């Protein structure tokens, strides 16, 4: 991790936490109302969480690519400097 990529990796971490933590907060969504298309809240909310997590992870992936690119550039420079 180089200084140029640190903030990007922090963003990746936050996005992944936003994906992984909500499913664990069971008391928040263990209720039957409001219903959506006949589905109790408990069920449709967890389907929504699947989509939410997929979006968060996708954004994290895009950011991680850029962060990785910067890390590799930094590593290449370092190696070049040593020669």
């Amino acid at each position, binding site marked *: 991790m180089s200084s140029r990529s640190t903030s990007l990796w922090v963003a990746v971490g936050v996005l992944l936490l936003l*994906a*992984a933590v909500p499913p664990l907060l*069971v008391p928040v969504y263990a209720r039957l109302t409001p219903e959506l298309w006949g589905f109790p809240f408990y069920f449709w909310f967890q389907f929504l969480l*699947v989509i939410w997590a997929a979006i968060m992870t996708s954004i*994290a992936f895009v950011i991680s690519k850029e962060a990785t690119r910067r890390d590799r550039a930094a590593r290449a420079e370092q190696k070049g400097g040593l020669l």
Partner: protein
Amino acid sequence: MSAVAFSVFIFLFLLVTVLGFAAARWRKAESMANLDEWGLGGRGFGTFVSWFLIGGDIYTAYTFIAVPATLFAGSVTGFFAVPYTIIIYPLIFVFLPRLWSVSHRHGYVTPADFVEGRYGSKGLSLAIALTGIVATMPYIALQLVGMQVVLDVMGLKPNSDNWFMKDLPLFVAFVILAAYTYSSGLRAPALIAFVKDTLIYVVIIVAVIYIPHHLGGWGHIFEVTKQSFADQNAAATAQGLPATKGTYPAVGVSQWAYASLALGSALALFMYPHSITGVLASRDRSVIRRNAALLPAYSFLLGLLALLGFVAVAAGIKMADLGGNAQLAIPQLMENEFPAWFAGVAYAAIVIGALVPAAIMSIAAANLFTRNIYKAFFRPDAAPAEEAKVAKLVSLVVKIGALVFVLAMDKTFAINLQLLGGVWILQTFPAIVAGLYTRWFHRWALLLGWAAGMIYGTVVAYQTPGAVSKHFGGSVHNFPGTQTGIYIAVTAFLINLLVAVIATFVLRALHAAEGVDRTVADDYVVDLGDTGVQAELNPL
């Protein structure tokens, strides 16, 4: 069952059989006689292939039978499979690229290979390998149980008391699976996974649209289910039994169980040798991360599938009609509601859905045995060709073992062991995942922590009574010192960590030998194109 359904089933089964054998020629390498090719498919799968392979790996036939079955049976925590498969992907995103990198640079095929290289401890590596093998065996057996259930509902059960004749269809399917796994290695399940997932997607999407439409819509299905469970609870209370049925975890205690089952299962899942095999077979780090973003499509599907358990309740399927076996609920629903030809497609989807993970699991177990037992302890000089030969034979032995398991023993035994398997495999987490970041833990402390977690988990699972059995009755047990039940694997994991931390301090104070770390920091971040990481290992 009609001739139409049977013909469709046989046609699809023959199709995947041909694919399984043809897979040996797919992405052909110079030589198949090494574990990188046979056991990891050449380590070159891109995003597309990996999506099918890892998806085929995680969402098994047994999942498709068992998850809706638990909802059908009125378990309030049954839907935990959905949060579980949400949490998995951020974990895969974070941890597995590091394991991929270090495995690529050092030629590791199994997680136990990595542990050996990192800690210089054959003992710890053996513990990881044995845990992986014993946790995988019942998992394979359960795939066969899934197949057996479908073959039963199809009426493919010759009237005979002879155990061999009775299960002849299962036996035939199994021999074919064993043969193409032997000849094609990981390429076979990778190629068959395309057919499997396409069929599963079609069947489930049709099922969740077509059947509820027939039964009066989803709102009606939830209403009927709620009423049915309320009636069953009232009947139970009248007999002085506890009222346990419901559609969701309404009270705090069951919510803890729900969250801990989801978290514990997610942490355990990617410790299973077969999921690591699927991930190590990918071409580069971004294939893994991109798939972490794409694989949740399966979780959505799994949630819909789980709800078919309620659909079965609303369709009037009663536990008593199924001989008390909830697992028959979904195949029975398909038999009752689908036109014959489509029921054939559905049965084929489930059976093929069992073949793919069973093949990957037996390959993963064979890799572990070959690398971390045979080579580590008996033949340190084994050449790659010898490794591949041994692994191919072991994959047969593992599958025959699973078959004997299912045919000779009580089915509940396999289910109990599968429950224990989840508890056991999570105990390898500290050694593998902590090892990806730090050498702080002492190797023997990790071994002690592992032993503590294994013993605690096994004993407590044994002491947990269920509705019909005195032992191995469930995955949830009171957290020590509380009245709150949580997933046994999670408690065992916390004990494991605690012991490992304390023992590390003690061993360090005693200056116990640390062992040689053959990896360097750079190994954990290398990607395709860096030194020592090739795209194709044995290009033709």
